[in-house]
């Protein structure tokens, strides 16, 4: 099949099946995932990802009726799409497509407008919170999975792949027919998240359950406890966008509260800006 060759605004075009080009990607074998969350912890440790945000996470579902039940685990991360919507929509070219297939973020260019977060169909991006233990690390810019490009450049696999005890995460160059991922792609049936969007993700799943992979199903079929936890979380953590609306509470009250939160955040942001420039130029 002839692949599309299109480049979004001077960005590197997709490299899927292009001879001589690399396209690093990941195959996640859900039959082998035991839900130990080692990948999540390894990622958090590798990058010092702050509390409340994730570069990779594992979604869990129960399927079937007792006694015929099974628990499904679904690791999630940036899909490093060949045709990324986030790259196309970013107004400052802060996010870009690397020639080897990685979708990366440049903190020094990011203005924190969160356009890429709105554009990403996979929820794979987050705004780094203002409060970080290490003051030298970036904050209030958008962050995402880099597929551990710093490790890959040195011949290592990403931290989550290294830490995976079940060997469920397999990493490699999908354009190299001798790589494990390319061979799995020919041998197994692979599924991707939201294929209808045409983003051509570089992260594929073996044994994917359509229900847990589906957005509408994920919303409709949640446990009551998860629903409550979610509402409690949103009520207590207003986030940095001040826009969460939860069930069972007056919309206008929430909108007013959110706007109040935004107004209260202005002095804090002003102080951050002032401190940053004092540190940069006056010390």
């Amino acid at each position, binding site marked *: 099949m002839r692949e599309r060759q299109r480049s979004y605004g001077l960005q590197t075009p997709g490299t899927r099946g292009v001879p001589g080009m690399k396209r690093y990607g990941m195959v996640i074998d859900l039959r082998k995932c035991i839900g130990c969350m080692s990948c999540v912890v390894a990622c958090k440790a590798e990058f010092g990802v702050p509390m409340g945000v994730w570069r990779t996470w594992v979604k869990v579902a129960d399927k079937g*009726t007792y006694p015929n039940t099974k628990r499904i685990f679904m690791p999630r991360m940036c899909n490093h799409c060949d045709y990324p919507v986030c790259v196309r929509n970013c107004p400052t070219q802060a996010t870009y497509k690397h020639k080897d297939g990685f979708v990366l973020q440049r903190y020094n260019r990011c203005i*924190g407008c969160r356009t890429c977060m709105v554009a990403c169909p996979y929820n794979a991006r*987050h705004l780094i919170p203002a409060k970080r233990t290490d003051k030298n690390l970036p904050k209030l810019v958008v962050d995402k999975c880099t597929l551990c490009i710093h490790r890959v450049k040195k011949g290592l696999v990403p931290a989550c792949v290294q830490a995976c005890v079940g060997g469920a995460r397999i990493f490699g160059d999908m354009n190299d027919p001798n790589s494990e991922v390319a061979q799995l792609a020919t041998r197994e049936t692979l599924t991707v998240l939201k294929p209808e969007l045409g983003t051509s993700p570089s992260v594929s799943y073996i044994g994917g359950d359509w*229900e*847990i992979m589906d957005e509408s199903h994920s919303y409709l079929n949640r446990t009551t406890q998860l629903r409550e936890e979610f509402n409690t979380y949103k009520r207590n953590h207003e*986030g940095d*966008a001040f826009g969460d609306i939860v069930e069972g509470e007056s919309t206008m009250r929430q909108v007013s509260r959110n*706007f109040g939160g935004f107004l209260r955040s202005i002095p804090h942001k002003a102080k951050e800006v002032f401190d940053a420039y004092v540190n940069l130029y006056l010390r």
Partner: protein
Amino acid sequence: MNESVIISNVFHHVAWGTTISVYFWLVGASAGAYVIASLGWVFGVERYKQLALPATGMAIILLMLVPVLLVWDLGQPLRFIYLMLPSYWHATGPMSWGSVLIMIYPITMMFYGYSVIKENKRWAKMIGGLCVFLAVAVELYTGVVMEFNPGRSLNHTALAPLLFLTGAFISGVAVLVLWVWIRNMIVSAISRAEKRVDWSLMEELAQYMMYGLIFDAFLLFLEFMQSVYGNQDEVMAHEEVLLGVFRFSYLWLEIVIGLLIPIIILVSPLKRTRFGIVIACIMVGAGVYGMRIWWVMGGQYLQTFY
């Protein structure tokens, strides 16, 4: 039970919140009001010339609040300047275009206001014409920036720019009528009654607003049909978001308060009373804000659970 039930997932916040919805409303009202302001000097409708300065002034005031919202909503407020730097500019990003438009639009409007004060017909017509183009473009942009997100089924529709434009026109008229009502009261109170704007113009504008409301209702109907006959995500978005969590802003605020009741008022004898027009305008202003709420936050709502 054969279906899977999600028992654990991480929590996500929406990326754009209340601030962006308020910004959309302000830009819309400003653009709508300006188009009315341009009728006299740009399109040559003589009796609207008296509205040019009050409407332009109001449009500029509304727009002056926008940078406060937009800049402080950024994670890195001072980096807003990156949006203007050629080396950072990204042609495929709708926000790149939008930021340029939002910067040029108020400046052009100030030049228009100056030309009107100086009664320079040639410049007023020329700059005013450019400003009408910018007003329409700014409003279309707000729809486009929401539309270009294929992952958000509620936003990803070609009707978005048109819905935003219609909303801008009706909210602009509504806010302008309220502004003139308040202004007339003030100038009467300080004994400068000759500065009052003719109220019959407001009655005429209210009628234009009613046509806008009917067109907006038609667009909403098209949007409704697309959702109902759409794919699973679209149907879900309609049932669970618009008629679920965002029921108040969609059904009550936008449709009932912002569309149906004002249309009823504006076709009834109340349309000839000041009370009826003012009430209809307040309702329309609130209704358009209701649309901005569900359009911005509702579009992202489902995905926060994904």
